C-alpha cells in the first residue's frame, strides 16, 4: 500500500462481499457520527420560540409527540446511514448509504406541519432523486474501468487508474444528494423546529462530503 490517503488501515473486515475498514481518518468521522447519533437518542428536543419584533410577545410552537417520535426515528436512521458510509470499503455501498442519507434528510423534516418546510423538502427530494443518476453512474464507471469496487484494492495502486469522469460523476452525485458545502438549497428545510434532529441533516451532509473527498483520492 503506497501512501494511503486516510492513513494505514488499522483493521480490515471482509465478510462475503461486505468490506469494512478503519483508518485514522475514517474512524474519526465514524466516532463523530456515533456521538451525534447517541446525542439524538438521549437528548430532549427543544421547542422553537417565536418572538414578535417591536413588542414583548413571544410563544413556543406546539409539536405533537408522534411527530417528534417520527423525526427522532429518522434522525437515528440518518446517523446509522452516515456511520455506514464512513466505514464502508465498497464504492457502491458508499453510494447506497449516501442515497439513504438523502432520503432520511428529507424524512427528518417531512413530518413538520408547515407548508414552507414540506414544499422545500419535496423540491430537495426531487434534486436528490435526480442525483442518483450521476451517483450510481459514477460507481458503475468505477467498476467498468478498474474491474473492482473495493477501496482496499484501489488503494494498492495496482489497478488501472480511475478515469476523471467517474470521480466527477461521483462527486456531482454526492453534491446533488444535498451534501456540504452545497446544501444552501436545503436552507428552507432548516426552518423546521426541533434542534437536535435538524442538526443531524447538516452533520450527516458534512460527514458524507468529507468521506467522498477521501474516496475520490484513492484510485
Amino acid at each position, binding site marked *: 500500500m503506497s501512501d494511503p490517503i486516510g492513513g494505514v488501515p488499522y483493521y480490515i473486515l471482509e465478510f*462475503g462481499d461486505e468490506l469494512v475498514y478503519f483508518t485514522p481518518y475514517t474512524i474519526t468521522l465514524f466516532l463523530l457520527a456515533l456521538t451525534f447519533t447517541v446525542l439524538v437518542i438521549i437528548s430532549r428536543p427543544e421547542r422553537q420560540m417565536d418572538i414578535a419584533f417591536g413588542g414583548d410577545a413571544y410563544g413556543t410552537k406546539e409539536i405533537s409527540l408522534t411527530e417528534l417520535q417520527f423525526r427522532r426515528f429518522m434522525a437515528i436512521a440518518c446517523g446509522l446511514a452516515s456511520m455506514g458510509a464512513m466505514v464502508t470499503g465498497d464504492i*457502491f455501498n458508499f453510494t447506497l448509504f449516501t442515497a439513504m442519507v438523502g432520503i432520511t434528510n428529507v424524512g427528518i423534516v417531512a413530518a413538520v406541519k408547515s407548508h414552507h418546510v414540506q414544499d422545500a423538502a419535496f423540491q430537495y427530494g426531487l434534486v436528490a432523486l435526480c442525483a442518483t443518476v450521476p451517483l*450510481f453512474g459514477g460507481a458503475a464507471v468505477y467498476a467498468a474501468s478498474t474491474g473492482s469496487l473495493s477501496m482496499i484494492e484501489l488503494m494498492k495502486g495496482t489497478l488501472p487508474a480511475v478515469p476523471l469522469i467517474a470521480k466527477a460523476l461521483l462527486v456531482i452525485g454526492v453534491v446533488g444528494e444535498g451534501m456540504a458545502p452545497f446544501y444552501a438549497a436545503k436552507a428552507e428545510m432548516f426552518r423546521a423546529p426541533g434542534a437536535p434532529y435538524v442538526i443531524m441533516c447538516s452533520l450527516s451532509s458534512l460527514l458524507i462530503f468529507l468521506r467522498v473527498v477521501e474516496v475520490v483520492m484513492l484510485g
Partner: protein
Amino acid sequence: MTMWGQYSYGLLVVMVAAIIAFFALAREYDDFHKFLLLDLIEIPSLGVIALLGTDLAEALVLPGLTVGIAEQLALSQIYCVKQGIKERPVSRLNIEVVAIGDAPLIISIFLVVYGILLSGFTGGGVAGLGLVYFFASRGYKENLNMLEMASGISWALWIFAFFCFMFLPDYWFIALMCAAVGIVLKVTVKMSLVGTMWGENRE
C-alpha cells in the same frame, strides 16, 4: 477492444437518454409532472449499471432499484401531505372488463406459477407483479397481517441461509434451497403489499 466499443456506445445512448430526461425536467414547472418525469430519470441510472453486463451488475441493479423506489415512495407521501390529499376514492383499477372478467385471475395465476418456476429475485418480482395485478383489479380489502408475517419469516430464512453459507459451507445445498425459497416468498409478498397497504391508516 470490441467490448469496449460496445460499452462506450451503450454509455453514450444512456447518457443521451439521461440528458433528454433532464431537459424535460428543466422545462416542467408542475410538481406532480416533475415527479413523474423523475421516474424516467431513474431508468438511465439503472441502465449505466446494467451496461457492466456481469452478474455483479445484476447484484447492483437491485439495490439501486430499491433505493430509487424508496425515494419515490417517500416523495409521493410528502406530495400527498403537502397538497392535503387525504381521501383516495380509487381503490381498484377502474376498468370494467378487468374488474368483472376472469382475466385478472388467469393472468395472475400464470404470473405466479411462472415466478415460482423462475425462483430467486426475478421470480419473486414476477410472482409479486401477478399478485399486485390481482389485488389492484379486484379491490382487495382485508387484513394483510398474515402476509406481513410471511414476509418476515421468509426474510429470516434468507438470512439464516446466508449465515449457513458463511459459517457452515459444507451444508451449502440446504442453504441454497433456503435462500431460493426465502427470497422468492419475500419478494412476492413484499411486492404484493406495495400498493395494497399503501396509505391505510393502521392504528
